[in-house]
């Protein structure tokens, strides 16, 4: 029973991690809270849905396609709403991404309707019995893909030249520019990667919950923010671990707390407020391990 919940929690947490990594990457590189990140996730989920529905491609081709499409969306947001801003008003980028949030969400409601859209059966659900545990192919897929992406990202950021350039830009735009890093290009790349991860999370949410609405963006954006805070702003590894912690905490809160009132929603905000008050740098510290 507890082990079963642990697996559910890990699965939920892995999607939270993917969202939070996007937030934290963009925060690290630009010092910006990308308010529209949740809507990017929602857009990614819908793009994945239509790619699967129209082309009928199997998931292992459709998912990368959805990732690329969402990545491009992120890059467009950077080019249209972040880059043209003047530098003198420090709140401008945040407010501008709030504008993007409103546009994306309302457009989605007009295009797809305010109710849920059924997500196509992307994979055959097979249940494997491992001792007392019931593990579905969905569980394996989601955990596998998320962990794979996280490991790849970790090595990309810590070991490759471009990853090092990203960390330099996170330290200081001026210094990075002086050292010959193309800052604009790195920012663009960061938006692309962060959005692609959000798109992945969006498609996975579609697969797990079988339906998506234009409002999933806000829900998962808030969870992603809580996770980013747990992990510490700009801390990628913190976001990975933080997501798993929140996912498990949420699943266990449903099991252990009384169910007649909708506590799990307050639960994550409660965690967020407690962390904000007592340890605003997050459990793993801000920018301690920028990688």
């Amino acid at each position, binding site marked *: 029973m507890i082990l079963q919940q642990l697996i559910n929690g890990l699965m939920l947490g892995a999607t939270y991690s993917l969202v939070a990594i996007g937030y934290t990457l963009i925060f690290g590189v630009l010092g910006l809270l990308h308010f529209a990140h949740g809507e990017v996730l929602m857009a990614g989920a819908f793009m994945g849905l239509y790619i699967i529905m129209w082309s009928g491609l199997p998931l292992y081709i459709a998912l990368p396609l959805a990732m690329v499409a969402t990545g491009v969306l992120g890059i467009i947001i950077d080019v249209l709403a972040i880059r043209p801003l003047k530098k003198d008003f420090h709140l401008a980028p945040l407010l501008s991404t709030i504008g993007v949030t409103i546009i994306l969400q309302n457009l989605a409601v007009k295009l797809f309707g305010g109710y849920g859209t059924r997500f196509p059966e992307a994979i055959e659900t097979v249940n494997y019995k491992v001792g007392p545990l019931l593990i579905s192919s969905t569980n394996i897929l989601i955990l596998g893909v998320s962990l794979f992406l996280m490991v790849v990202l970790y090595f990309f950021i810590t070991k490759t030249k471009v990853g090092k350039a990203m960390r330099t830009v996170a330290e200081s735009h001026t210094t990075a520019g002086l050292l010959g890093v193309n800052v604009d290009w790195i920012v663009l790349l960061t938006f692309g990667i962060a959005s692609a991860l959000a798109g992945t999370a969006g498609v996975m949410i579609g697969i797990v919950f079988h339906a998506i609405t234009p409002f999933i963006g806000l829900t998962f954006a808030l969870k992603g923010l809580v996770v980013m*805070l747990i992990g510490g702003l700009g801390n990628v590894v913190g976001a990975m671990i933080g997501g798993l912690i929140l996912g498990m905490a949420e699943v266990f809160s449903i099991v252990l707390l009384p169910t007649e009132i909708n506590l799990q929603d307050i639960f994550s905000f409660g965690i967020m407020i407690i962390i904000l008050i007592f340890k605003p740098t997050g459990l793993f510290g801000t920018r301690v391990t920028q990688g």
Partner: protein
Amino acid sequence: MDYLISVATIAGIYIIMALSFYMPFMTGQISLGQAGFMAIGAYVSAICTVKWGIPYVPAVLLGGIFAGIVGLILGLPALRIKGIYLLLLTLGFGEIVRVVAINLKYTGAAEGFPGIPYQKYTLLYAYGMVLILIIFFSRLRRSRMGRAFQAVGSDEDAAEIIGVNIVSAKLLAFSVGAFMAGIGGGIFAHYQEYVEPLMFDIMHAIEFLIFTIFGGIQIFWGPIFGALALTFIPEFLRAIQEWRMELYGALLIVMMIIRPQGVIGLDTVRALDRLFRNALGKEWA
């Protein structure tokens, strides 16, 4: 005519809400919890009139005071944190208020709280409140406290060095802003005759932010202008009405690119002032 009055009334309530966002914003605090404070004001005042039979004016005031107290409590931890941390704290707070309202059986939970007595003179009360706020803000601008607020808003460290008590300045601005939002909520509840948690979601908090940012953030006329313009223009251009939110979003981005200080800046106010002086001659001054 009735229609015009109803639009004007809503615009008046939105002016109060935009000013309630502007108040903490003066000290550099961005609050996405104003819809939450509005909800507190609306629910508390509605409980006062419906369940306890308290008259309208004290009920609305009680709603405002209660929201102000909650703002004070929320503001205490908010002092330690700033920037995006504060934004996240107020965002979480707004959501918690909404979730509590959805689950609270006493006020009808998710179905909403019906049967709130209708206030016929809402228009007068709303604009009376706006007038009080205009007087308040114009006096505040020239006062010691107001200058302290502006100092904290433009550079917190510098303000602290020259001896401004930034703790009390920020806390005061935050809880007074919450009080204003609570009053706005009380007036709103007794105009709509019923409230439901959906009326106070995060998108509404963002709407109040847009009124302020679009109107202008350098002087209190900005939020007033923003709330009026963005309530009236979509009402009379039906084509815009349907795409209102998308336009708000685009407007926000465009404003950030071309005029981050908003439509009404200090330069606009000075230009208008000069215009009036020239038109009315020396006696005006």
